[in-house]
């Protein structure tokens, strides 16, 4: 009996020791994890600093070397050194001048945008609305800079009355659906700002000539853009769009939001609705296998 009691006591003591050791080990591991996390954060900041500064560092090095070369050219009366100094100083100054004010990696923008789109997707998904979103003409809106898309509950193309839209209501009863701000509104307004026009005041020919130039040369959003009009449909073909990864992610990860189109396709829809003064739907959106080319077809609805 005494032996059994002492054996139990030993077991209990062993268990206690084991538990203590485990706790100590967990503490050690937690400390290690914290240290590693801190180190990771330090490395991340260090990497960010390196990523942020290359052009300015190169520019300052060039200017400094160029200035030294110019000084020595005067001291030694050397034409070669003077030419070298002029060149280096000039290119250094040029790099400083031609450095973009703000450079943000597209991945960062995509990560910011996807959360809002997912939230919208969840709301629309829970409502169970299955219709195709209709981008409304600006004529039905109070403010010309505003834009709305109507998502019908069923697959139909009936649009709410102008009064209902102008009242600013979100949930519409007749026809049943929801009035939302399209994901590309900000982008469409930016296009107008850059072109210094209102899309509602220009025609489709203007859009055909000016929009590709804006998107390719000024904003660097796409490598190539073609706009074809045929009766009630407009087809837009974009190559190497900066929004392609986000578009693919939206198509892959969302159910309802994919019907609205990605921000760029949505902005195009707004621009077209404003220009043609007609409501429209995104009829088709095709992405090539290599995800480099996107072809979007918009269908204009009767006014």
């Amino acid at each position, binding site marked *: 009996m005494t032996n059994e009691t002492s054996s139990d006591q030993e077991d209990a003591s062993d268990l206690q020791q084991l538990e203590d050791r485990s706790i100590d080990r967990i503490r050690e591991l937690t400390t290690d994890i914290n240290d590693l996390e801190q180190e990771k954060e330090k490395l991340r900041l260090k990497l960010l600093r390196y990523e942020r500064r*290359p*052009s300015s560092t*190169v520019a300052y090095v060039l200017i400094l070397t160029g200035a030294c070369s110019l000084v020595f*050219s*005067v*001291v030694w*009366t*050397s*034409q070669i*050194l*003077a*030419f070298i100094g*002029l*060149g280096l100083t*000039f290119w250094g100054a*040029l*790099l400083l*001048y*031609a*450095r*973009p*004010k703000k*450079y943000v990696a597209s991945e960062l923008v995509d990560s910011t945008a996807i959360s809002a789109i997912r939230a919208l997707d969840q709301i629309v998904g829970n409502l169970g609305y299955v219709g195709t979103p209709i981008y409304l003409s600006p004529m039905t809106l109070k403010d010309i800079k505003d834009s709305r898309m109507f998502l019908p509950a069923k697959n139909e193309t009936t649009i709410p009355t102008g009064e209902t839209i102008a009242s600013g209501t979100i949930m519409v009863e007749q026809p049943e659906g929801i009035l939302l701000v399209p994901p590309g509104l900000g982008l469409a307004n930016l296009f107008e700002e850059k072109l210094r026009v209102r899309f509602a005041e220009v025609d489709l020919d203007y859009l055909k000539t000016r929009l590709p130039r804006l998107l*390719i*040369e*000024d904003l*660097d959003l796409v*490598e190539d853009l073609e706009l074809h009009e045929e009766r009630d449909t407009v087809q837009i073909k974009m190559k*190497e769009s900066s929004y392609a990864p986000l578009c693919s992610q939206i198509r892959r990860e969302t159910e309802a939001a994919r019907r609205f189109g990605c921000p760029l396709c949505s902005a195009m829809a707004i621009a077209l609705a404003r220009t043609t003064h007609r409501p429209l739907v995104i009829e088709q959106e095709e992405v090539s296998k290599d995800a480099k080319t996107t072809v979007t077809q918009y269908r204009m609805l009767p006014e």
Partner: protein
Amino acid sequence: MTFPLGFWDIGLWIAVTAIILLATSELLAPYYGRTSLVIDRKRMRLAALALGIVFLIFVAIRAAGIILFE
């Protein structure tokens, strides 16, 4: 101690730099790949045009000099 380059030497340097810069600014594609140097193409083009105009001014001075004084 004087600066070793004369007016026409600087004109020559501007000519060469303007040509390089104009060609570079035209060749820069909207997508110039992942480089560590980030360049604003618009400003680059503006600088190239400015240098090109300076070079043309040098040419005009030279031409005026030939017509008027030679």
